[in-house]
């Protein structure tokens, strides 16, 4: 026997890693086989996980779409500078040139007072009122658009202060009201989403813990005998961890499926609505990063739940 011992490890060593990988693959497949052996209950558990995961995933997508929709109205973060009435066309042009070179400014458009008057005339309704006035009551206006890095409310406000100090600006206006409101609302939505995701993540974890706990109870005899013949904790743990991994993965995949299905159902009506508004807005789908996040999170929750169940219950089962 001792002679045999000396011989085998040396002969076996080169393929140790392969044996180890093969064992893991076997255990992973065996765990998959266990799921397949009771398809109905497995499917129910997976669907519960899928539904719980699809809610935060779907809401995340909704939020992203709303933010994208808001992005179409970037113009809201523009600053209008009304120049003093006596300012000439040339002076206005030179100011525009100076502002264009400032940091944080993406674009400056000069709205000539004559041009503006023409516009008003064309729009109609004002024609009578304008005729009653002598001369052109409108000033030159510079429309300044901050670059994306400076269009948040605080930077835009700072830019406004600076521009107001420049001659011959008489009045500067930054309409941020709705940008601020919108930001406040999305912030609330984002936090709500985080809370919801945390709660539902917890639910997923608990479902997995409970499922694995039942599985451990069902396999009590097997665990006892494996311990009896010298199975390490790691060896005994492994099939349950793989089971958790599979539950997580399939739960994540079914959540992906559910969200995609909902998107598909919504895409038609959304396109029609966007058409009515003359918008080319299309619903953003699950981009690869979101899918990876969803599946990765689901797998982690599955593994984590299995780990918790195993840590809690495997020690209690000892052969007698």
């Amino acid at each position, binding site marked *: 026997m001792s002679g045999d011992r000396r011989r085998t490890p040396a002969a076996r060593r080169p393929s140790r890693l392969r044996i180890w990988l093969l064992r893991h693959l076997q255990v992973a497949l065996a765990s998959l086989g266990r799921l397949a052996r009771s398809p109905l209950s497995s499917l129910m558990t997976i669907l519960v996980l899928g539904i719980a995961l699809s809610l935060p995933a779907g809401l995340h997508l909704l939020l992203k779409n709303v933010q994208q929709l808001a992005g179409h109205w970037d113009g809201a973060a523009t600053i209008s500078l009304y120049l003093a009435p006596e300012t000439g066309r040339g002076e206005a042009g030179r100011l525009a040139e100076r502002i264009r070179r400032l940091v944080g400014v993406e674009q400056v458009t000069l709205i000539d007072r004559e041009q503006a008057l023409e516009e008003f005339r064309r729009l109609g309704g004002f024609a009578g009122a304008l005729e009653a006035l002598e001369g052109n009551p409108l000033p030159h206006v510079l429309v300044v658009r901050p670059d994306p890095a400076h269009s948040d409310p605080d930077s835009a406000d700072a830019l406004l202060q600076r521009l107001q100090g420049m001659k011959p600006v008489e009045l500067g206006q930054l309409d941020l009201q709705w940008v601020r409101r919108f930001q406040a609302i999305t912030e609330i939505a984002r936090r709500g989403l985080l809370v919801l995701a945390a709660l539902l993540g917890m639910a997923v974890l608990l479902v997995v813990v409970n499922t694995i706990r039942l599985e451990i109870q069902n396999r009590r005899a097997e665990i006892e005998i494996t311990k009896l013949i*010298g199975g390490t904790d790691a060896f005994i743990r492994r099939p349950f961890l793989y089971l958790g991994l599979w539950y997580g993965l399939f739960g994540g995949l079914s959540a992906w499926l559910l969200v995609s299905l909902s998107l598909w159902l919504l895409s038609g009506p959304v396109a029609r609505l966007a058409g009515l508004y003359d918008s080319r807005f299309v619903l953003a789908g699950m981009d690869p990063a979101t899918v990876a996040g969803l599946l990765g999170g689901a797998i982690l929750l599955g593994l984590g739940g299995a780990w918790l169940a195993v840590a809690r219950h495997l020690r209690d089962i000892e052969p*007698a």
Partner: protein
Amino acid sequence: MIHFDNVTKRYPGGHEGLSNVSLHIDPGEMVFLTGHSGAGKSTLLKLIGLLERSTRGQVRVGGRNLTRLRRRQIPYHRREVGMIFQDHRLLYDRTVFDNVAMPLVVAGLGHAEVGRRVRAALDKVGLLNKEKVYPITLSGGEQQRVGIARAVVSRPPVVLADEPTGNLDPELSREIMQLFERFNQVGVTLLIATHDLELISRLGRRTLTLEQGRLLRDSTA
């Protein structure tokens, strides 16, 4: 191979399953353990397989001090001690082959090696033709032999058997004892608990007699 130094096992509740037992079994010995029901035979075997821990005293197996063995070391100790039970303790949702293969799989042996050794073990117990069947379809004697094959498949230096012939007829009991004698011939240390005094006297081996947790007699019959 097996040393007990003033070993006491007190169960929760205060009852002493084993009281101050000292004994010494050499490598390659085949020893019987007998005594009335409740004398402490199973307790003694469980201490060797670390299914229980001693309350006092020291147990050593193959140079390993079990008193100080850490929890995570227990599996490696159990791989050196094959255990056979009266109730077989087989897994009924696995084939005979898979049952016998368990100790090798647990030890991380390769597929080919596992197949070779399992068949060798099944051949020894005369069940080579049954490797694909489920244990539930086997007779009690056959199931016991599957349990024996599982206990010896990884060639542990020590094999413990707790009433291995408990519900078998005399003919089958004799066969199983012959099997044990063959293992003993290749150097395995065996400790067998049994009530069957007739069997013991016929084999003429060293016999330890327990009574109420104490070692009453240590005799070579």
